[in-house]
C-alpha cells in the first residue's frame, strides 16, 4: 500500500523547502486575513452578528 507512494519524493532536491513554503504561505494568508477583517464596515458586521437574534420575539424564558 503505502510503500508504493512512500518514496516518490526521495529524488526531489531540497525537499525541505516545502515546509518553509507552507509556513510563508500560512503567514501570508494570516496577514491578509487580518487586513481584510479590519476593513469590513461596521454596519455589515452588526447586521451579520444580529443573525442569531432574528426570528423569535422572546429569546429568553428567564427574563
Amino acid at each position: 500500500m503505502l510503500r508504493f507512494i512512500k518514496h516518490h519524493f526521495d529524488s526531489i532536491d531540497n525537499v525541505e523547502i516545502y515546509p518553509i513554503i507552507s509556513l510563508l504561505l500560512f503567514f501570508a494568508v494570516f496577514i491578509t486575513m487580518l487586513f481584510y477583517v479590519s476593513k469590513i464596515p461596521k454596519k455589515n458586521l452588526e447586521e451579520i452578528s444580529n443573525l442569531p437574534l432574528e426570528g423569535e420575539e422572546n429569546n429568553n424564558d428567564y427574563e
Partner: protein
Amino acid sequence: MEKEQFYYDNKIVKMFLIATIVWGVVGMLVGLLVAFLFIFPNYMEGISWLSFGRLRPLHTNAVIFAFVGNSIFMGIYYSMQRLLKARMFSDVLSKIHFWGWQLIIVAAAITLPLGLTSSKEYAELEWPIDIAITLIWVVMGINMIGTILKRRQRHIYVAIWFYLATLVTVAILHIFNNLELPVSAFKSYSIYAGVQDAMVQWWYGHNAVAFFLTTPVLGLMYYFVPKVANRPVYSYRLSIVHFWSLIFLYIWAGPHHLLYTALPEWAQNLGTVFSVMLIFPSWGGMINGLLTLRGAWDKVRENPILKFFVVAITGYGMSTFEGPMLSFKSLNAIGHYTDWIIAHVHIGALAWNGFMAAGIVYWLASKLWKTELFSKKLANTHFWLGTLGILFYAIPLYVAGFTQASMWKQFNPDGTLETVTQIMPMYMMRAFGGTLYLTGFILLAYNVYKTAKAGSTVTDELVEAAPLKQISPSRAPNEKWHSWLERRTVLFTILTTVAVLIGGAVEIIPLLTVPSNIPVISSVKPYTPLELEGRDIYIREGCNNCHSQMIRPFRSEVERYGEYSKAGEFVYDHPFLWGSRRTGPDVHRIGGKYNDNWHFNHMYDPRLTSPGSIMPSYPWLLTNDLDISDTEAKMNAMVTLGVPYTQFEIDKALFLLRNQAEEIEKNLRQDPEFVKNYGESNMQNKEIVALIAYLQRLGTDIKKGETAQN
C-alpha cells in the same frame, strides 16, 4: 418581495436531544465503572468483556462520539435552519443521519467489549464501522451543504463556518487515520507502521479533539450564547480572526502528544511551536464568548443556562491554556503518561463539552416543547453538582499526576506499582467527583422528561421569510472580499480544506518520504507467527490503555525500564502500540526481564506476582484456544504492507508457531506448581502462550547479548 412560508424541522432536533441524554448517561456510567476498577480491580473478575482494557475505549468513544456527537448534531440541526432561514435540505437524509449514527454507536458498544479494536485511540472501531461512519458523515455533509444552498439568508453566520470546518476536517482525519488492510470481517492492520503510524494517529487524535470536540461546539457557542443572553456576539471581527487562525494552527499541533518519543526531533519541535501559538486563537474565542455577556452579568445569576455556559467557556479557557503549557517539553516530561492528562481532558469533556451540551439541552427543551422548563431549581442543583463534580474529578488527578511523575523521577527501586498505591486516595476522590457529575446529569434527564410531558407535541414550526434574490456569483462592485467569500459556500469549504491540509501535509509527507527520518536498525526483525498472534491478543485486551511501549530518553526511565526506544525498532509495528498512559509500567523492554512462568502467573492473577497491583486478571487466556485460522492471512497482509516475511515463513507459519508454543510450554513445565495445576492441560494451544511469546520478544531486538535479569 413575496414571503414564503415553510416549517422548521424540530422533530430531528428533539431526536438528537433525546439521544444526547441517553448516551450521556451511558457514557458517563461506563466512565464511572472504569473509575471504580481503579479502586476495586477485582469486582468484575473473570468477565472478559468488562475488563478495563476493553471498557476504557468504550467510555471514550461513548462520551466523544455518542454524547458530544449527538449534542453537536442537535445544536447544528437547530441553529442551521434558523440561521439560514430554511428547513433542512432533506428529511430523509436527516433521518438516515440520525439512525445511522445511533446504529454506529450500538455497533461500537457491542464490538469494543468483544475486543474488536484497531487499538488507535478514539479510532478503535474496526474497518466495517469505519466505512459506515464515512457514509453517514457524507450523508450529513450533503444535508448541510444542501441546506446552505437553498437558504433564504445571504450571509452565512460564523457558527456555520465552524460546522463546515468540522465537516471537512473530520472527514479527512477519519479517512487517513483509518487506512487499514482488512484481514477478516473484524480484523485489520493499519497501513502505517511505528513512527509513521504514531504520527498519523496523533495528527488524528489531536485534531479529533480540535474538530469534533472544539470547532462544532464553538459554532454552538457563537449561536446559543448570544441567543440565550439576547445580545449579539462581543466582536464579530474577532470571530473571523478566531476561525481562520484556529483552523490553520490546530492541525499542526499533533506531535505534542509524542514529545520525547522516537519521533524525529524536527516534528516534535514543530508540534511545540504551533501548540504554543494556539493559545491566541483559543483565548480569543473564549474572550469573545465570555464578553458576549458584557452588561448581562446580572442575568447569569438568574439564569442557570448562562451559568452552564460561563463555566463551560471558562473550562475551555483552562484546557486551552493547559494544552500549550503541556506542549513545552519540560512540562510535558512531567505530565505525559500521568493522570495530569486525564484531568486535563476531563476539564474539556466535563466543563466545556458537558456543560455546553447541558445548557443547550435546557434551552432547547423549553423551545421544542413550547413550555417553561419543568424546574429551574433542579437545573440549578444540576449546575452545582456538576461544578463540584468537575472540581472533585480534576484536582485530585492533578495531584496524582504530579505525585506519580515525581516518584518516577526518583532513583530508588520503587516500581510504577508503588506510585499507584500512593495515589489511590486520589482515585477514590475522582470516582466521587464522577458520581456527583453523573447525578447532576440524571437530574437533567428527569427535568427534560417532565418538561416534555407537560409541553406541546407539535413538532414543526411555521415560519416565513423572503426567498433569496438571485445575484451574480462573482463579486459585486462594492462587496468586500470576505463577505463575498462567505456567500460562496463551496469555495469557502474548499479554502477551509486547504487551510487544514497544509498543516497535515507538511508534517506527514516528509515522514513518509524521507527515509533518513527513520534510521534502519538491521537487527530488528519481523515478529514470528506466534508473536504476531500474541500481539493481536495484546491489542484485543487493550493492554496499550495502561502500558506504554515507549521509553523516553531520561536517565530515570532508562534506569527503570531499560534502553530508551528507537524509531527503527517499530518499523514492523502495524499498528504502533506506544500507548499514552502509564497506569502500569512501560513494557517496551519487558522481553527477557521475567521468565515465562512469571508472565503466566501474572496474567492469571497479577496480585500473585505483584501484591497490590490493580491490573485486571485474564483467566480466559488460559482456557481460550488460540485461533490460528487467520495466521497465514495475517502474515500475507503484513507482506502487502511491506513487512519482509519470506514465502517459506508464510508456508511454514503454523509449523513455526507450534514449535515456538511447545518451547514455551516446556519452559512453563519447569515450575512444579505449573505441572501440579496445569499438567494435564495442553497449554501450548492456549492464547496465553502467544501473549507470552510476544511479551518476551518486546524490545529484545537491540539488546541481544545482554543477560536477562530482574
